């Protein structure tokens, strides 16, 4: 408590001092621009844009964050480029893992957040393993992650397929495909081939040694794809894309895959819990008689859910000015407030292990049947592993994987050859 009082008084003094300084400079508001892909039509915008609005309202007259739109596809590359230009924004969400580990951390290009954690008793809510992952060898904390785990599964259109009294936790992929019949799965090969990545991840997870492989390469990326568990999974993926892929899967970007699902052209789409927002009401995205109420949420067949707790989220570059760092820290703390974490879970799903849910949250969460179903599809036996994208180097995960898929579908590449290509590409992109 004493520490808290000290902190408050310190903060007050700081605030007064700063307000004096900035009063002389401008009209007292610290204005910052935050490049993000979570705007506009991006699924992340549903939660993120209102969050920033609430932040601006809460700190009115003091801080103001203006969002600047980047596409998700270009975010990591742009951040790297800005890093090279020494022009990083004041707050960054993640980025290319390789770059962060080989360039940002060794060159001390970040602000140590361990003080922020200690001063605000953040360990009360943060997930221990995430903080451990973000702690460098010399004890600095690189980034802070919102303490919500969101195992990813799939959605299916209940008006097109009927699992009876079973769920995907009880079915293998083969059994699921049998139920699926001629219905399609919304795959994609454009952008990072996200929905396809998730399916492949679940296929690898049930292979012998697959789950271990996925879990052990989130830090040191996978450089050798010539492994039986991957080859077998790719072979199954190949068959599935050939027989149950949507007609537009080749070249499909995320929006095309989502469109396929929301127009009834595909009965299944693998995706994270954040997509529930798209099914809550018709925001002009539904067509062809699709009804969001028919959508069911589930884990992936084989009882697999994908989640990577080892990741980087909010970090502050050392190049940020003192004022900017102050806003960034305030923003991080703001997102970690219980109401905002709960708002996040309501919008995009997930569980916060250390958080005692408020009554309002429980009441609101139980209203959203789909989200409730999706989140609770995970049971004690569910295999939770990182996604394949998490074990790929960034240029493979972002482009090359998707570029190779059409050749796999057409049969020009065998599963073995496909894995061999990935291996060669992984070696090629290694930092010089």
């Amino acid at each position, binding site marked *: 408590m004493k520490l808290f009082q000290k902190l408050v008084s310190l903060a007050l003094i700081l605030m007064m001092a700063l307000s004096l300084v900035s009063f002389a400079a401008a009209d007292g508001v610290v204005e910052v621009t935050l490049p993000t892909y979570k705007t506009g*039509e991006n699924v992340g915008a549903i939660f993120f844009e209102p969050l920033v609005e609430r932040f601006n309202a809460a700190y009115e007259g003091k801080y103001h964050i203006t969002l600047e*739109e980047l596409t998700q596809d*270009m975010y990591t590359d742009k951040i790297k480029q800005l890093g090279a*230009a020494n022009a990083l924004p004041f707050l960054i969400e993640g980025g290319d893992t390789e770059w962060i580990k080989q360039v940002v951390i060794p060159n001390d290009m970040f602000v140590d957040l361990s003080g922020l954690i200690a001063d605000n008793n953040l360990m009360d809510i943060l997930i221990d393993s995430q903080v451990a992952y973000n702690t460098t060898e010399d004890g600095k904390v690189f980034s802070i992650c919102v303490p919500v785990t969101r195992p990813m599964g799939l959605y299916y259109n209940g008006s097109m397929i009927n699992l009876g009294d079973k769920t995907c936790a009880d079915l293998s992929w083969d059994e699921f495909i049998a139920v699926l019949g001629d219905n399609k799965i919304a795959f994609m090969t454009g952008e990072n081939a996200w929905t396809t990545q998730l399916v492949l991840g679940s296929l690898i997870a049930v292979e012998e040694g697959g789950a271990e492989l996925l879990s052990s390469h989130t830090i040191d990326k996978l450089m050798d794809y010539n492994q039986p568990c991957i080859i077998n999974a790719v072979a199954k993926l190949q068959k599935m894309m050939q027989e149950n892929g949507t007609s537009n899967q080749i070249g499909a*970007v995320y*929006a095309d895959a989502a469109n396929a699902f929301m127009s009834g052209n595909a009965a299944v789409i693998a995706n994270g819990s954040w997509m529930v927002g798209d099914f809550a009401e018709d925001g002009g995205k539904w067509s062809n008689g699709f009804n969001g109420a028919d959508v069911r949420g589930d884990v992936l067949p084989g009882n697999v859910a994908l989640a990577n707790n080892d990741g980087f989220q909010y970090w502050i570059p050392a190049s940020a000015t003192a004022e900017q760092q102050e806003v960034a820290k305030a923003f991080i703390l703001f997102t970690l407030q219980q109401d905002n974490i709960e708002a996040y879970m309501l919008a995009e799903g997930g569980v916060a292990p250390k958080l005692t849910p408020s009554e309002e949250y429980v009441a609101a969460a139980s209203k959203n049947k789909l989200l409730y179903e999706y989140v609770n599809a995970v049971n004690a036996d569910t295999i939770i592993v990182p996604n394949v994208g998490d074990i790929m180097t960034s240029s493979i995960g972002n482009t090359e994987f998707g570029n190779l898929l059409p050749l796999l579908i057409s049969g020009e590449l065998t599963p073995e050859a496909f894995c061999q290509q990935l291996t060669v590409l992984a070696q090629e992109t290694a930092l010089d």
Partner: protein
Amino acid sequence: MQTTVNTAGHARKLAAAARRSGRSIKPMTPGRVVYLILAYLFLLFIVLVSVYPIVWVIMSSFKSNAAILGNPFSLPDTWNFDAYVSVLNQYSFGRYAVNSLITAGGSTIVSIVFYAMAAYVIAKYNFPLKNFIYVILTLTLLVPGHTKTQPIFQMIMNMGLYDTRTGLWLVYLSGGIAMSLFVLKANFASIPRDLNEAASIDGSGFFRTFWQINLPLARNGLATAGILMFLGNWNEYYYAALLTSSEQNRTLPVSLAYFNQAFSYDYTRMFAALTIVVLPGIIIYALFQEQVTASVAASGVKG
């Protein structure tokens, strides 16, 4: 074209054209009929591939998503500007256009003066290394822009001009050296030498002779080179994408890459945005059509 570019062969071309015009009344032999049919079919194809893609984009921007998916060939039922309104509200196209105008226009105005000065002395005077200088300057036409990526990125960073319009403006200054020199040199060369001699007898200095006598006479060439250079910079994508990052400094072509994803749920708005990006260039071209055509032809005229 003959009326705008005042090249050396101007009179000759006019004479040739005048004689040719008599040929249009030719007897219609079967061979000529076949020739005409084939020629027009070919030209029809050329016209189609040139305008249809753009017409299709503009048409689609007025159709609903369902109509775009259902019948890509149909005309829009109504002229519905909703997509335009929503796109213009979401994105500051005005700002992007202003950025494009400042960087492309600003650099064109400055560099056209520089290149005019260089072209003038090359056309009118003899001096050591003249041919060498002219040749190496025009060789820049062959340097692929991308080959200088890393050094230019580094240079703009070192100057502290990353993500500024000034940085982009600076890079654009160097665009179109070769083309401008081709056009302007031919232009200055066609201005009679006597004028300079008369001016020097009158006591007009070197600079005044250039500025008050030659430059006004070369205005056609200046317009020609300037517009082509402007269009080149106005449409430039690669360096604009590389050297800017914030929305504040975004140019029109770069904005394409940003709404690429955002709109792909909604084809109508995507097409509306494409139209907004494409239209200004077409309008500028429509206004200066003669100069653009002339400058392209002239840039192929060697030496």
